[in-house]
């Protein structure tokens, strides 16, 4: 397809620690199309953040290393790109915003100073022009008194405002893809609503594709077109937002949705998945979710299930689908 912006194929990122090799991301494949918002959902330890950091080669190495797979951005494999090339990609082509707007900004420089630096790395313009560009970007993300804010320090802004500054900085070089790693997790709900609205506006008006990493299925429902569900380093299910939330196929996704307390309607007792999230381990035999799965049978503990294609781009990693109609995916690197 022409309009694929980003394509991950069999990406594996391992950490080499004293406790041995940890496959934090294990053969992850998915695509992001132009103008699309794709959500990567999972609990802590699912590998969602490591996936997003791998794309921009921001994994500290050692101990981390991309051991196999490719990251194709507009056809170019970023997994093989040089550091010099990556510097051009970061910010210019792909920007990233993080969870903690407090720690992502330098407390001893003004907002304008930090934004100018980011702008002038990527564009050869004068200091004055860069300041004007910074003010223009701050206005775009809805910051009032932008002319004054450029001369203020991060501590003078609230959490929501700092996250807006981060987004303004990320958008200043007009990237094709924005990676947002838990952008609203540290914010209150009324501020979260403002930031989600801003991201929707950017997606619609600037046609920026967004890869959103989150643990919150409510945020997913609000902004994402398609969803990738991860568990213990692997993709367990893929589909459109509606399919995943309304008709989840993998027992983990089903359990996750059923364990959420609802805001409307009544429920007596919450469903809960027994046990805790499995830590990724090398040479693990069997499905990673099997110890917590209520449908697990013998095979689940002996073999690793592949992703099964369920038609219309839906995939699910569960042996239950062998009993249903659905052809087996040859390899995790084939089409989505």
């Amino acid at each position, binding site marked *: 397809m022409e309009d694929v912006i980003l394509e991950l194929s069999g990406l594996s990122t391992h950490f080499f620690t004293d406790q041995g090799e940890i496959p934090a991301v294990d053969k992850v494949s998915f695509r992001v199309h132009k103008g699309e918002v794709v959500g990567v959902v999972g609990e802590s330890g699912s590998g969602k953040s490591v996936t997003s950091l791998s794309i921009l080669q921001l994994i500290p190495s050692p101990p981390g290393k991309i051991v196999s797979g490719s990251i194709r951005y507009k056809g170019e494999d970023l997994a093989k790109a040089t550091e010099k090339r990556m510097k051009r990609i970061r910010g210019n082509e792909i920007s990233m915003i993080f969870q903690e707007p407090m720690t992502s900004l330098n407390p001893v420089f003004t907002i304008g100073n930090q934004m100018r630096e980011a702008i002038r790395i990527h564009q050869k313009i004068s200091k004055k022009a860069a300041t004007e560009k910074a003010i223009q970007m701050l206005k775009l993300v809805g910051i009032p008194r932008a002319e004054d804010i450029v001369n203020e320090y991060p501590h003078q802004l609230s959490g929501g405002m700092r996250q807006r500054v981060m987004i303004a900085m990320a958008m200043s070089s007009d990237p094709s893809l924005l990676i947002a790693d838990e952008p609203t997790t540290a914010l*209150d*709900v009324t501020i979260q*609503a403002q930031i989600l609205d801003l991201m929707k506006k950017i997606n619609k008006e600037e046609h920026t594709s967004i890869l959103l990493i989150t643990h919150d299925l409510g945020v997913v*429902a609000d902004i994402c077109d398609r969803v990738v569900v991860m568990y213990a380093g692997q993709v367990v299910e893929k589909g459109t937002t509606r399919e995943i939330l309304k008709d989840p196929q993998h027992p983990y996704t089903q359990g996750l*949705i059923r364990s959420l*307390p609802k805001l409307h309607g009544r429920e007596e007792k919450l469903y809960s998945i027994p046990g805790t999230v499995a830590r990724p381990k090398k040479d693990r035999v069997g499905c990673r979710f099997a110890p917590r799965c209520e449908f697990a049978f013998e095979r689940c503990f002996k073999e690793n299930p592949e992703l099964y294609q369920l038609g219309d781009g839906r995939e699910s990693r569960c042996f239950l689908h062998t009993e249903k109609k659905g052809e087996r995916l040859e390899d995790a690197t084939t089409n989505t």
Partner: protein
Amino acid sequence: MQQPILEVNGLKKYFPIHGGVLGKKVGEVKAVDDVSFQVRPGEILGIVGESGCGKSTTGKSILRLIEPSEGEVKFEGQDITTFGSEEMRKLRKDMQIIFQDPYASLNPRHTVEKIIGEPLLVHGMKSKSERKKRVQELLEVVGLSAYHASRYPHQFSGGQRQRIGIARALANNPKLIICDEPVSALDVSVQSQILNLMEELRDEFNLTYIFIAHDLSVVKHISDRVGVMYLGRMVELTDKEKLYEEPKHPYTQALLSAVPEPDPDIVKERIILEGDVPSPANPPAGCAFHTRCPFAMDICSQIRPEFQPVDNQHFVACHLYDGRQ
């Protein structure tokens, strides 16, 4: 009507701000500003609000872990703000707390047995073997095993640690437990386990909870009645069905509309509030919410609205409902 187990009247907590070369008091942060409510025996009262609204300070002031500046806290009819430290120590047997961060609230150098056994020792269980037996019993109650007693906190996951925190709170058979964000540090799949456990324990031991959290869906699930706080004040308090289906205060309405729900079929008319929460060191005059309120009138910036019943047992502090009591 049943006697309330806890009655909070006009509770205030002001933190002084020191400044200048001499460190003189230059102002006050009004963390909790005139909050009143009652808790009935056996109920779960939820308190929700955004960060800085004073919900945790309210919880800690009730236990006098933070000394309230003004107001009374009546536990079973007695005003505990007048109690001396020895009386207070005895009373803490009946009032316990569960903290948010299961990583920070357990001493890493102590075994689980020591952590859970400590409150037993403090409240007079001198025999070591008796304590050991009780600790094992408590571990079973919260879904852990007796052999966990000899382990250290770092050997447990977040959910298991929160179970240890709950076991510690239960040790002396309290009547009231204040739960300060007990599940917000946990993953969704573990969160539901802890919520279910807390409900089971409530039924089994006739407990009363004050459940403080920022997550509206979690509070909805577990509470019988819910109070909403904004900038140190209680703005609305009623039964959970009424609060979630017919919120009366404009802030509650905006808060509920801002929660993204994991259901693509729910199309919401979202009320986006402008700006941020004002600083509690310098709260707006009149109604604290008037700077962001879509329905603000002239009176709102001048006179602070009374927290009064609008409907049967539906308390709201808003001028829109003036003259409707």
